[in-house]
C-alpha cells in the first residue's frame, strides 16, 4: 500500500541557482499527483528531492522537511533506504545494457543481495505482468538483453524494475515523453491501474495526460509551486491567473 508524502519549506539549489523556492505540499497516499509547468521550472528537481536523488549531484543542495508517512527522510534515514522505498522511472528508458531482461527487472533485488531464486522468478513475473510487458517478453527473459527492446517496451521494463522492489511510492519523470503514442497510452493505462497500490507522482509536460491520469495536480513556475489542487479544479477553474495562462496555452 502507498504512503503519503508531506513537504514543508523545501528549497533546493544547483550550485548557486535556487531551483526550488519554499515548496509546501501534501501528496496523499494511493493517489496519483501530476506536476505540470514549463520546462526548467523545477518539477524534476522536486521529484528528485523526494527520493534523495537530488543530492547525488555534487553541486546540489536541499533544505526543508520531506516526510514519508511519519519519517523525515532527510534527518532520520539513509538515502539508500529511502530509495528502496521510493521507485523512480526516468524520462528516457535506462535499462542496464549488460543484463538480460530478467536480470534487469530483478536488479533492484539482486544488486541488494537477494538470492532466493524462487522468489526472484515470481517477483520478475509479477512485476512484468503489472507493467503489462509479460506477454511480450516471457519467452526471452534470459536470452535477450534489456537494451534490445523497443523504446516503449524498455520503459515498461524500467517500470517493472521499479515495481519489483515493492516500493511504496512511484516517481515518474515524464515517463512517456520519449515514446510514441501507442506506448504512451499503454503507460497511461498502467499508471491508472497502479494508482490503487502506490502513491504516484508524475511529472508531465502534457496537460491532457495529467487530466487523464491524476487526481491532484500541482503547477510549477520558476521554482515555486504556484497552485496545488484537484485536477478537475485546476483545469476548469484555477485560482491563480498564471495557472490559467499556462493551461490555456499562453506560454510554455
Amino acid at each position, binding site marked *: 500500500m502507498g504512503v503519503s508524502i508531506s513537504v514543508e519549506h523545501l528549497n533546493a539549489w544547483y550550485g548557486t541557482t535556487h531551483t526550488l523556492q519554499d515548496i509546501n505540499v501534501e501528496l496523499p497516499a494511493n493517489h496519483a499527483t501530476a506536476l505540470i509547468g514549463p520546462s526548467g521550472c523545477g518539477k524534476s528537481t522536486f521529484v528528485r528531492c523526494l527520493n534523495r536523488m537530488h543530492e547525488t549531484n555534487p553541486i546540489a543542495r536541499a533544505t526543508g522537511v520531506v516526510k514519508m508517512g511519519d519519517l523525515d527522510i532527510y534527518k532520520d534515514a539513509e538515502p*539508500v533506504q529511502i*530509495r528502496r522505498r521510493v521507485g523512480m522511472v526516468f524520462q528516457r528508458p*535506462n*535499462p*542496464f*545494457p549488460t543484463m538480460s531482461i530478467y536480470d534487469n527487472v530483478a*536488479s*533492484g533485488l539482486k*544488486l541488494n543481495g537477494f538470492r532466493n531464486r524462487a522468489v526472484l522468478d515470481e517477483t520478475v513475473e509479477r512485476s512484468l505482468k503489472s507493467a503489462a510487458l509479460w506477454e511480450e517478453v516471457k519467452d526471452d527473459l534470459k536470452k535477450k538483453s534489456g537494451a534490445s527492446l523497443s523504446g516503449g517496451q524498455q520503459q515498461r521494463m524500467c517500470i517493472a524494475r521499479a515495481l519489483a522492489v515493492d516500493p511504496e511510492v512511484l516517481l515518474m519523470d515524464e515517463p512517456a515523453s520519449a515514446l510514441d503514442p501507442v506506448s504512451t497510452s499503454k503507460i497511461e493505462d498502467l499508471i491508472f491501474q497502479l494508482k490503487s497500490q502506490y502513491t504516484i507522482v508524475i511529472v508531465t509536460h502534457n496537460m491532457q495526460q495529467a487530466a487523464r491520469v491524476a487526481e491532484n495536480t500541482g503547477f510549477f513556475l520558476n521554482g515555486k509551486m504556484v497552485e496545488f489542487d484537484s485536477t478537475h479544479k485546476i483545469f476548469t477553474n484555477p485560482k491563480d491567473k498564471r495557472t490559467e495562462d499556462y493551461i490555456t496555452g499562453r506560454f510554455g
Partner: protein
Amino acid sequence: MSTNPFHTPPPSNEAGLPPPANRKSLWTRVNTARRYVVNHLITGLSVLSTVIVIVPLVAILVYLVYMGASSLNLNFFTKIPAPVGETGGGMANAMVGSGIVLALASLMGVPVGIAAGVYLAEFGRGKLLATTVRFTADVLNGVPSIVMGISIYALIVKPQQHYSAFAGGVALAIMMVPTIARTTEEMLATVPHAIREAALGLGVPKWRTVVSVSLKTASPGIITGCMLAFARVAGETAPLLFTAFGNQFWSYKLTEPIAALPLQIYVYAMSPYDEWHRLAWAGSLVLIVMIMVAVTLVRIYASRGVLKGAS
C-alpha cells in the same frame, strides 16, 4: 555630380569610359596563380611526408620478418641459449621469464591502476584532487623508463644485494599504473550517467553501483586498456636492466635474476656473435607480433563501438 564625400568617380581611360569591370590587374592574376601553386605544393609535400613515414615502418617490418622468420624454429621456443659458438639455442627462458615478470607486474599494477581510474571517474568528478592526479598520471607516462629502473634498483635491489624478478615486476608495475588509470577513467566516462542513476534510484549503494553497473558496462574497454598497457611494458628493456638483470638459464624464482625477451634481444644485438644476432632478430619478430596483435585487437574493439546494445 553629387557632393557626397563618399562618392568618388570611377577612373576613366583615354576614351573617357570606365574600364571594363572584369579586367583584373596583373598583380591579382599572378598572385592567384601563386596561391594555387603553393596549394598544390603543400598537398604534394604532405603526401610525400606520409609516404616517407610509411616507408621506414614497412622497411623495418619486412626486414624483421625476413631476418627473424628464418631463425624461428622449434628450438627457439623450447631451448635456452646455447654456449657461445654452438648453434641450436633458443630464447625459451627469455619468453618464460618475460611472462613471469609481466604476470607479476600485472598483478600489482592492474588492480591499482583500475582502482585509480575508478576514483577519477566515479568519485573525483570535478574535484581538484582528481584533476591533479590525472595530470600527474599523464606526466608520469612521459618519464623515461630507465628512471623507474634505477629507482627500483635503489629501493629493492641495492638493499637486498641481488637482482630479482620481483624487482623487475615492481618496476614494470609502476609504469602500468598511470597508463591503466587513464584508460580506465576514459572508458568509465563513456558509461551513460543514466544507468548509474537507474541503479542509485533502486537503492543500490554507490559502491555496488560502481562495481556491478559502471565497471561491468565498461569492462570490455577497461580490459582493452590493460592489454595496451601490457603490450607497452612487454617491450620495455630499460627498467629491467638493473632489476631483473637477465639470466642465461632457466629461472623461476622471484628472488633471482630472470631473463626477459627485450633484455635478451638487447644483449644479443650488442654482442659480436652472428648466431646471437640471429636470435635477436627472431626474438624481435616474436615481440612485435605479440604487440601488433594487441594493438589490432584494440583497434577492432574501438571501431565496433563502445557499448554493446546500449542506445
